[in-house]
């Protein structure tokens, strides 16, 4: 292998390059940490450009999943990328893609975020794979992430099923040297499914498709048992066995040279390879399950093995029940002595992230607080997902909720329905098009007494400034949904305009119907990037 074929790649980049080399025709995604860099890599790739690979951002994960399924219908290989909570948004098409099956290969990449570095929950996407009854892959290294992509697309086309690729933050956002292939597979030609009805999930068809999918399950288990990705290593007279899933395998290996006798079963392909688990259990009195995220394997292994085997893991307390794994927590669970560690400093203070100095969201919150503190202290502000969620923290302390993409508007409506007065929703421009528009239609149809603030910074800021799907269309969208034009306001969130913005907020809080205020000023980060590029 020549030296120039060794690249230092983020896990996300390894996936992107692996997919391109596997003949990808389109990536469909909405930005979300830690998945964003997969799509960005493809957007900047000369090979993708040369091949005209689709890579423009989608409005949300559901539109992304459906578009990918459409591309697959036409015979081409498509990839969908998202952060774990994006799986909730696309759950409907994702689960049903197991029923339709695929034509061109489909790989769905879900990047989980154990420890919630940039997320609101710790959900484990492997449950979705099991729920949809499709194969799941989980790489334990960047090299494997790269290699897995062609394996995943081939498997998807062979089984005619989508494949779920599960990543975690520490794999997505960690770099390592990856050897890449000299050969690049061609993209597929257009070809549509032979059957006219297979993709029409009417009950009569769906029952047949469900039978097909269900009948395939033993084959999927067998495939996992025979997969070169699942390896059972047996050394000495093992008493304790270890099942290590995906990245957890690295934390086990980190400590392996200090372990005398052991069995280690590495799982990187699911369903769980039942026979390999049983084979290990024959030699082991206890089995430690090491997996990042939720106890997905641990729970299932309890159903596979006889009662005499002790199963240890997150459920039994050997490993922490929540939070990402570390080499240290795994070390202790393996029964090894902790490294000597210096005491943590008692004077170090937390340094939480904050809105940039001069950011337009700041003026929005300052204006809102002006009204809340001086006029209507009973005001409740329902927030949403983005940089502006930081408005919940000091110095603002303005927000009362942040649940999921788009929940600000619908929760505000529900609270107003219940009888709360002075109700505000704060949502960003990209979040609004992602999942806020339908909720706004509900609110407009009911003329709910809420004030919706669409804080428009012309970009998807939190994930690094990706295109915002509704750019320059927000007034038109609101009016098109039926908003009274007398209650639509566009303001520029600058400190000097605060009195005017506060006046409008107060006036619309007093109005017993629906209003939309759009504070609009470009994100400072995006602006400075643009200026730098101009200077070049």
């Amino acid at each position, binding site marked *: 292998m020549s030296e120039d074929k060794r690249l*230092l790649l983020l896990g996300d980049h390894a996936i992107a390059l692996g997919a391109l080399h596997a003949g990808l025709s389109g990536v469909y995604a909405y930005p979300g*940490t*830690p998945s964003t860099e997969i799509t960005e890599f493809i957007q900047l790739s000369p090979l993708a450009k040369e091949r005209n690979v689709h890579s423009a951002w989608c409005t949300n994960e559901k539109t992304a999943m459906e578009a990918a399924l459409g591309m697959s219908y036409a015979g081409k290989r498509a990839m969908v990328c998202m952060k774990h909570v994006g799986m909730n948004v696309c759950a409907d098409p994702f689960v049903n893609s197991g029923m339709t099956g695929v034509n061109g290969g489909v790989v769905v990449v879900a990047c989980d975020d154990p420890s919630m570095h940039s997320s609101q929950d710790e959900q484990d996407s492997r449950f979705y794979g099991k729920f949809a009854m499709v194969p799941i892959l989980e790489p334990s290294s960047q090299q494997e992430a790269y290699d897995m992509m062609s394996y995943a697309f081939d498997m998807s086309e062979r089984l005619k099923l989508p494949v779920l690729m599960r990543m975690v933050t*520490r794999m997505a956002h960690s770099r390592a040297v990856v050897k890449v292939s000299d050969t690049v597979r061609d993209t597929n030609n257009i070809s549509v499914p032979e059957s006219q009805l297979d993709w029409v999930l009417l009950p009569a068809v769906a029952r047949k498709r469900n039978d097909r999918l269900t009948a395939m399950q033993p084959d999927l288990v067998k495939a996992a048992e025979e997969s070169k990705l699942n390896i059972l290593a047996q050394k000495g007279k093992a008493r304790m066995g270890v099942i290590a899933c995906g990245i957890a395998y690295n*934390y086990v*290996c980190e400590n392996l040279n200090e372990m005398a006798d052991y069995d280690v079963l590495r799982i990187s392909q699911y369903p769980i390879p039942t026979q390999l688990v049983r084979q290990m259990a024959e030699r082991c009195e206890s089995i430690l399950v090491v997996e990042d995220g939720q106890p997905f394997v641990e729970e299932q292994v309890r159903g596979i093995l006889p009662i005499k085997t002790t199963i240890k893991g997150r459920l039994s307390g050997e490993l922490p029940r929540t939070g990402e794994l570390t*080499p240290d927590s795994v070390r202790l669970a393996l029964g090894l002595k902790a490294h000597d560690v210096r005491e943590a400093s008692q004077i170090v203070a937390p340094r939480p992230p904050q809105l940039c100095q001069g950011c337009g969201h700041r003026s929005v919150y300052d204006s809102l607080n002006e009204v809340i503190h001086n006029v209507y202290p009973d005001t409740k502000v329902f927030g949403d997902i983005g940089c502006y969620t930081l408005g919940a923290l000091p110095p603002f302390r303005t927000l009362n909720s942040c649940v999921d993409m788009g929940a600000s508007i619908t929760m505000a409506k529900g609270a107003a329905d219940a009888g709360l007065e002075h109700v505000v929703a704060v949502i960003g421009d990209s979040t609004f098009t992602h999942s806020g528009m339908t909720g706004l239609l509900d609110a407009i149809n009911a003329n709910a007494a809420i004030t919706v603030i669409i804080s428009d910074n012309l970009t998807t800021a939190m994930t690094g400034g990706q295109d915002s799907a509704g750019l320059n269309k927000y007034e038109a969208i609101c009016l098109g949904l039926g908003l009274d034009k007398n209650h639509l306001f566009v303001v520029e969130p600058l400190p000097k305009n605060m009195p005017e913005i506060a006046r409008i907020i107060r006036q619309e809080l007093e109005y017993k119907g629906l209003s939309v205020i759009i504070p609009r000023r470009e994100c400072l980060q995006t602006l400075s990037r643009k200026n730098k590029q101009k200077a070049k």
Partner: protein
Amino acid sequence: MKRDIVLAGVGGQGILSIATIIGDAAMKKGMYIKQAEVHGMSQRGGDVHSHLRISSEPICSDLIPRGCADIVISMEPMEALRYKPMLAPDGWIVTASSPFVNIPNYPDIEAIYAELKAVGNVRLFDAEQLAKENQMSRSVNMILLGAASHALGLDIATLSESVARVFGKKGEDIVNMNVKALELGAKCSQ
């Protein structure tokens, strides 16, 4: 050879550039590399850190075990102190001394210095001032990298070649300035 390095700072201070240079240098030497970074919201003025592992042998974990880091390189003194539990018994801390105060409860800076010095192997110096004096205020990170070179086991010539490769597109002036910054930093560690 194996070095486990924690890079620390505040979002936007340029710790990832340090990682890029070390990574490039290690790769040229044919070493294995793993580097876990932080992206996303945490970059907005919050604390950021990265685990960088380089080794002539294959590396398992992307994360460095606690108590095992050979060196902590920090752009900011309190951020250096935050990772004290990561440090190996004979590990080094190389940190800029000037505080970045963007929180109301920033601790007494003299107390931070005292606790840092108590660690033993510490290079605590005003990298920011040094950069200003030499008209290279955006190369504080490279000065720190230079100061850490002794503990990294990577010489200035190797790191300079990496600077030339990584910053090459930005032009000769930028490369020369950053190479000079490495050399200035290396002097501080003597």
